[in-house]
């Protein structure tokens, strides 16, 4: 972690001479996003743009030396939205061109948002749509509100999480409640947030390094995109690490213990996996090999596993591991095509948001009644996806609330045909 900025810059610069580097934008949306961007200061390789977006001029001011974009001067006069999503959505809608401009020439945008409030929530939605329009890869870190912040905020967060999921390539949801689990009772709020930011920083830093520098075993933006596959689905994210002398098992444990990795219980299977290992000069290939194969086993991902390894002289004996995985939910709504008309912005794209109806924009636009005729037509045309199960828990039916029936890493309570992906035409 403790890498001086200047040396990092050197490293990045030598590379920039030889090949055109890919352009990465880190966007902090809203208040919480701004705080994270601020924490990044001086800890990033060069060539990474940082930018804070907010509707509150005061908060933006506090973000320090980054690119700043103030939204909604007309509507809020730079005084924030007061936590109202509706106002914020209106602002974002008004200033769509500004978002598009921001993404010009960018290859990958990584955004940070605290969900549940006004600006951040709406900006994430807007940015995600803009990224779809500009065909920019988008990895979003979304922080979910504390439970004690009340049900209203949680609901807003939940709704937008679902909405954004299908528009971004990767979505890492981080429940703020996890922070409460950190450290001791007397851990100060500042330290707790700093600790949480530390994971995000390590994760983002290693992504940037992976993409921008040539590694021992090289991975680039394309590998990241291939791992994230298409928009939608569930993203796994974890960082871990340790001293070079620590055993492979310890390293893996640190990775699995990482709170960013939201593993409900038992094992998780993932469809694609990307592992990036950064170590000092003494990083052994045998160790890399062991780590990768053990991770592949752990996540039961043997077919589609990409890994990169890079040497960072500053790391000396330490090893950092970053893991990005993707679970293709069967329910995945296919990535919206280039003409983003209907799916992306839902209701918002077509009509002015009603100023009073608080729930209006979040309601799915579903027809009130589908005639039997239209249903018939659909049957003959494209093949329907037959299952729409959202969570792993919902796949267990009768056994929903019982202990997991794990047998050689598979949950036997989940129907065989689902686990094996056998098409059943009901």
């Amino acid at each position, binding site marked *: 972690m403790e890498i001086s900025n200047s040396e990092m810059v050197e490293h990045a610069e030598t590379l920039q001479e030889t090949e055109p580097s890919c352009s990465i934008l880190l966007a902090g949306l809203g208040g919480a996003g701004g705080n994270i961007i601020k924490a990044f200061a001086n800890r990033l390789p060069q060539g990474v743009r940082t930018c804070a977006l907010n509707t509150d001029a005061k908060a933006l001011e506090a973000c320090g030396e980054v690119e700043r974009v103030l939204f909604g001067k007309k509507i809020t006069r730079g005084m924030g939205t007061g936590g109202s999503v509706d106002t914020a959505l209106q602002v974002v809608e008004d200033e769509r061109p500004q978002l598009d401009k921001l993404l010009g020439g960018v290859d990958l945008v990584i955004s940070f948002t605290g969900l549940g409030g006004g600006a951040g929530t709406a900006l994430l939605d807007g940015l995600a749509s803009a990224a779809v329009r500009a065909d920019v890869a988008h990895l979003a870190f979304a922080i979910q509100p504390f439970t004690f912040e009340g049900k209203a905020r949680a609901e807003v967060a939940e709704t937008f999480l679902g909405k954004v999921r299908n528009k971004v390539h990767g979505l890492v949801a981080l429940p703020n409640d996890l922070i409460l689990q950190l450290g001791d009772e007397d851990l100060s709020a500042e330290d707790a947030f700093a600790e949480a930011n530390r994971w995000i920083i390590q994760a983002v830093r290693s992504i940037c390094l992976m993409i921008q520098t040539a590694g021992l075993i090289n991975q680039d933006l394309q590998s990241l995109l291939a791992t994230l596959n298409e928009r939608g689905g569930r993203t796994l994210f974890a960082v871990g690490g340790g001293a070079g002398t620590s055993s492979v098992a310890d390293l893996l444990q640190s990775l699995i213990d990482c709170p960013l990795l939201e593993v409900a219980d038992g094992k998780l299977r993932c469809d694609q996996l990307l592992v990036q290992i950064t170590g000092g000069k003494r990083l052994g290939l045998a160790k890399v090999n062991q780590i990768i194969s053990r991770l592949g086993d752990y996540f039961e991902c043997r077919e589609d596993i990409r890994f990169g390894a890079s040497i960072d002289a500053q790391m000396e004996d330490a090893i950092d591991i970053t893991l990005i995985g993707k679970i293709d939910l069967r329910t995945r709504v296919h990535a919206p095509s280039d003409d983003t008309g209907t799916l992306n912005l839902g209701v918002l794209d077509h009509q002015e948001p009603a100023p009073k109806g608080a729930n209006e924009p979040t309601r799915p636009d579903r027809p009130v009644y589908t005639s039997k005729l239209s249903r018939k037509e659909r049957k003959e045309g494209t093949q329907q996806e037959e*299952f729409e*199960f959202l969570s792993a828990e919902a*796949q*267990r*039916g*009768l*056994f929903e609330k*019982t202990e997991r*029936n794990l*047998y050689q890493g598979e949950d*036997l*309570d989940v*129907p*065989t*045909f*689902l686990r*094996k992906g*056998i098409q*059943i*035409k*009901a």
Partner: protein
Amino acid sequence: MSNRKILGAVEIGTSKIAVLVGELDEDDMLNIIGHGVCSSSGIRKGAIFQLKDVSDCVQNAIITAEQSAGVSLSEVFLAQTGAHLQGRFLKGGANVSAADRVIRHGDIERAQKDAKSFSLEGGRVYVNHIRNPFLVDGQTVEEPLGRIGSRIEACYWSVDASQRVLSDQMRVINGIDINVRDVILSSSASAAAVTSEVEKDTGCLVIDIGGGTTDFVLYHSGYIVRTGVIPVGGDHLTNDLSMGLRLARRLAEDFKLRHGHAIARKEDRAHRAWAVGDRSVGDRECSLYAARKIIEERLRETFFFIQNELGDFLQSRGIGAGVVLTGGTANLPGIADLAEKCFNAPARTGRPPQGVKSSLAGPEYSTCVGLLTYAIGADEAEGQETEAPRFLRKIRSLFNL
């Protein structure tokens, strides 16, 4: 009257709780004089989920059985299944102590003690030690007593259970003021009821597919050499159907019974079946092929797991007499054909022996009936070690009602 012995057998299964009362008369003939069956609630996948519900069901079943037999039970034999069971092969040895190298009782006992001395981790207890042939100087020997050799080894296939699960079941039965005389592995009990001596000697695989679990036993040369439990049963078929066809659970169960078949055939593609059958509101047609494909995949997988568990045993020794399927799911048409395909060996459905009254003749009762036959053995041996092959030879002739 004084010679009359009353034996009770209880099986706490995922879908039903069955209690049988048997009577041994003066001529050592076993009569089943009463039975009680109660459909279970509070049990999932062979493990107790709601103690209170299960307790009520067991009490019901026992009272029904007692009433129909006109006797009261004071102790019962209990069948045991569930994913918490674990089998392992134990082997212990002793050097023959006598100078003339003749094996005596003491040597055998020491070898047996040594084998059983393998200590389990905390929270687990042994359920059954199933004796396998002795080895004298590495040679398989049925009866080592009096043989000459320098080292004798005793082998067991031992099954241990989670103490917590076991004591839950014990508590249910003890709560009705009945003692549990012994706990017996469901799979070996079913196997005792559905296989013949010849089959066991030739080697056969008994698969008992119940509501929540699948138990299996592999016989070789008359001995049980492997047992195991796969935590999948008929309920999983129902659940798969209910999710695959999007039917309510009750309808799915009904659909399974009416239209279920273990193999999806090409001609099924043309057929559709009504979900409810009475064409009431909400009734709809489901693809027969889809339903059967769902069942086939689940069963294939289960059979595959069994093959996996048996591992090299299956290849090296084979199952000469084939596969015997029993338990409630063995009623599913076509399941024997599927097993034949999967195990590449002849397969049949096994039912309790001839002579058992018709209400107990279905494969779902084989565990309970088998339990009684085991119970007689235990009663005869009285404190001695249960030697399955010997007493079972006797049992076969006993089975006439």
